[in-house]
């Protein structure tokens, strides 16, 4: 926006006398230029200026059933905060910083801090160059994100694969009539963190914190990725390739001393992804597919596809009801098996389109091989301009005793989160 105001500034200076009416808003360029001069100082001192956005949140998780393991705690409570700072250094340069932290009563691993974003971006004609920590999302589907690979999952935050750790990178982006092309250099790897022994929603064996890397470069292996995307009429298409350290480790059972644990092994992969969405009248058709070559193992394929149909103006009201169905397939087996190997996910999304932005999303995923069922219901609404309430319920039902999710079978939970934005 500052870019726009500043263009406007130059123009008004030339053409009319409205220059004086430039807003004293927090994002006006006049202010931003001043901020820009102090940017490094502010970053170093973690100063919370007037232009900081973010929220503070309190969350509780209530587990109706007793835990499976003696060392697991019953319920949990936590507080979290997210702070976001934006600086417009000049017309073409901006700096974005976003940090997240949580303190959790039951899980020392879930008490964590992460720099979600901290990057400098410069725009040149139809493109941009950015350097620093960023979050990149690829893909179109709802129930599983297959092509999305740049960022590591923030697995202790939520298992849904939508919370991500910040990824250091250099990104080049270019947009022309032939579409949009991005190139990424990823010089540092972020390991996945797993819940601690005292936490609910953990695997039966403890996951060791020091992983094994297939590449001798370890965390410093330089990964790279390319993505082209464009839209034509009703079609949105993306083709991507990633080369580097797999974000999902193999969890290999290992005896250390007299205790069995799981050791994460991060393999080198080449992943080519394809995503397409057709936007029809009230129906979205979606498909994501990946072909993954793992060094020393071979090639695997996975896809997810389905539709989202929306009934607009439900029963003459302004509410919309979306119906989502997706089928998931993944031929990785054994240690490499994914939860989405042969599953159907079906869901309903109700948006009331009211003052308070009330939304409900209910999802049921069924494993067609072992009959495991997972139910998730999320609802959120604004209480007023500053307060926001979110409620989530998750149920693991008819869990097969031999499946990896069996250790969650007593971990149905109800979560309540209240946020105060500022």
């Amino acid at each position, binding site marked *: 926006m500052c870019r726009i105001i500043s263009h406007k500034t130059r123009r008004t200076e030339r053409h009319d006398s409205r220059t004086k009416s430039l807003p004293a808003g927090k994002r006006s360029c006049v202010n931003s230029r001043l901020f820009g001069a102090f940017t490094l100082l502010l970053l170093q001192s973690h100063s919370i200026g007037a232009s900081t956005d973010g929220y503070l949140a309190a969350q509780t998780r209530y587990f109706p059933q007793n835990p499976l393991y003696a060392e697991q705690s019953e319920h949990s409570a936590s507080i979290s905060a997210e702070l976001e700072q934006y600086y417009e250094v000049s017309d073409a340069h901006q700096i974005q910083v976003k940090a997240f932290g949580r303190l959790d009563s039951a899980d020392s691993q879930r008490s964590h801090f992460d720099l979600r974003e901290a990057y400098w971006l410069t*725009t040149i004609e139809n493109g941009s160059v950015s350097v620093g920590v960023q979050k990149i999302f690829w893909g179109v589907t709802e129930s599983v994100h297959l092509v999305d690979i740049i960022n590591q999952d923030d697995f202790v935050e939520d298992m849904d694969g939508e919370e*991500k750790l910040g990824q250091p990178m250099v990104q080049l982006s270019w947009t022309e009539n032939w579409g949009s092309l991005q190139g990424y250099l990823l010089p540092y790897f972020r390991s996945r963190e797993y819940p601690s022994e005292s936490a609910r929603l953990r695997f039966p064996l403890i996951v060791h914190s020091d992983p094994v890397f297939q590449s001798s470069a370890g965390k410093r292996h330089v990964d790279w990725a390319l993505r082209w995307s464009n839209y034509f009429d009703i079609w949105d298409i993306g083709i991507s390739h990633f080369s580097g350290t797999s974000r999902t480790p193999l969890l290999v059972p290992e005896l250390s001393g007299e205790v069995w644990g799981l050791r994460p092994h991060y393999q080198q992969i080449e992943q080519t992804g394809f995503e397409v969405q057709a936007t029809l009248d009230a129906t979205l058709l979606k498909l994501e597919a990946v072909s993954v070559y793992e060094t020393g193992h071979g090639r695997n394929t996975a896809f997810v596809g389905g539709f989202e149909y*929306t009934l607009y103006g439900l029963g003459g009201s302004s509410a919309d009801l979306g119906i989502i169905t997706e089928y998931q397939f993944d031929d990785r087996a054994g240690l490499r098996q994914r939860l989405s190997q042969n599953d159907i996910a079906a869901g309903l999304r109700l948006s009331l389109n009211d003052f308070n932005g009330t939304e409900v999303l209910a999802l049921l995923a069924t494993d067609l091989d072992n009959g495991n069922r997972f139910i998730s219901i999320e609802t959120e609404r604004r209480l007023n301009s500053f307060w926001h309430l979110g409620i989530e319920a998750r149920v693991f039902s008819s869990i097969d005793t031999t499946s990896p999710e069996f250790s969650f079978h007593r971990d149905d939970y109800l979560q309540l989160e209240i946020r105060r934005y500022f």
Partner: protein
Amino acid sequence: MKWNKTIPHLILAIVLSGQAWAVEQNNEKALAIVTESKQRDAGWVDASAEMTMTLFDKNGNSVSRELRTMMLEVADDGDKSLTIFDTPHDVKGTVFLNISRVLEPDQQWIYMPALGRIKRIASRNKSGPFLGSEFAYEDVGSFEIGKYDYRYVELEDFQGKPNHVIEYIPKYENSGYTKLKVWLDTKHLRQSKVEYYDRKDSLLKTLLLSDYTLYENRYWRANTKTMVNVQNKNKTILATNKLSFGVDFDPATFHRSGMKHQK
């Protein structure tokens, strides 16, 4: 016998065609006025606006949203617009990109900062509420001649000034309206008032346009738009706090790939 039957038929045919001719004349007149109005407004190239949208329910409770819109004029097709939400805080940074089309559905994307995700959304929801307000998406989209058929109704005084009253009949099959009744003042051909009729052809909403300001010595813009839903008694006021022309946007501004870095 034949003769006797034919004459009344002929007379009827002449009368009917006369009426048809009159209707056609009316329609042509309406089209000419609307075209003239559109032409007077053409050539604005681009603009950016800061707006406050205040929603009132029937009990008088209200809530405000702040948004900024960047607009790009596209000759002979629908315009492009990019809207950034500044409040409410939980959706701050959300970006909405709309590429209007004349008869095909618009292309729309939404960028959700919490997920870092750009999502194409179905534009069937043209008749759906924009930001939970009494404005529908189709009310805030760009006006293109080809979107409607026109019918001249009458000349009527509105707020003491003569106005053409013209019915706009949407050609788009998923429009939420059977017709719009538009009052255009005869002097500047600016919209003074619009009545929206729902699919049952009963009055749904009334829009009053006021605080007209002349920009760049040429373009009239209503800085206050008040939409009243006569059926549920809710009201939305869309106030333009600041409007600038000649912004000269970066080329990637109105492309899907540029949405993420809009601030």
